[in-house]
């Protein structure tokens, strides 16, 4: 599944990094706890989260997470978008809940991160 296909499944809007929409995703993770993300998430994945701060992007950067999708209509601030742009992390926003967002991607065949 590409980021573009994930965005379509989530009815999400791309707010940063639309040049990366055709990149292939390997897996997905839904979490607000960045400590867990740092411990279990794999490269090439999409992170679905309701947490909106710069450290979500930093966490994605360290792990080579391709894309972060903010759920429940949460919008990243300009400094968050700037950091995402500098670090090459694509940002999506969608209106559905974290639970539903995870369910939609899983239903479309995108597997969960299995950890290290």
């Amino acid at each position, binding site marked *: 599944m590409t980021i573009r296909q994930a965005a379509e499944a989530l009815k999400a809007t791309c707010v940063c990094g639309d040049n990366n929409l055709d990149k292939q995703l390997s897996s997905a993770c839904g979490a607000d706890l*960045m*400590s867990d993300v740092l411990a279990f998430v794999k490269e090439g994945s999409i992170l679905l989260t309701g947490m909106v701060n710069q450290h979500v992007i930093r966490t994605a950067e360290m792990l080579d997470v391709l894309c972060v999708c903010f759920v429940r209509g949460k919008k990243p601030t300009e400094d968050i978008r700037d950091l995402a742009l500098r670090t090459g992390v694509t940002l999506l926003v969608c209106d559905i809940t974290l639970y539903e967002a995870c369910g939609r991607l899983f239903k479309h065949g995108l597997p969960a991160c299995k950890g290290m």
Partner: protein
Amino acid sequence: MPDAFTESFDIRAKDFSSAGEASAKIKSVLRLLGIDPSLIRRVAVAAYEAELNMVIHSSGGKMNLTITPDCIALLCSDTGPGIADINTAMREGFSTAPHDIRMMGFGAGMGLPNIKKNCDTFSIVSDSGGTVLDLRFLI
């Protein structure tokens, strides 16, 4: 060590907005040197966890990166107040992080165990004068 590349990064206590900048620089240095991406990720995750720990818990310190042809070494040393019980701190889920840090998605007590998981050799020494983490990653 004539073949060594070294760089030092100052880590400021409680400066949560800039936390992660040193780890991001470390990651970009490793990329420029053409290090294997999966090794870079392991170093980056360990560095970021260590940097966050220093920002959240210590009164500041330094991260020293040394790269030789066969090893990446990351020495993280702070100026205190030290870890009261290292064995307990190494347990997954144990945390002394304050509420505001937890509200930002950190402080789940996964940091030190995750650092250990990502490096090839892990050493920690701590007293009231500070904590020294010596992390090695084989190339």
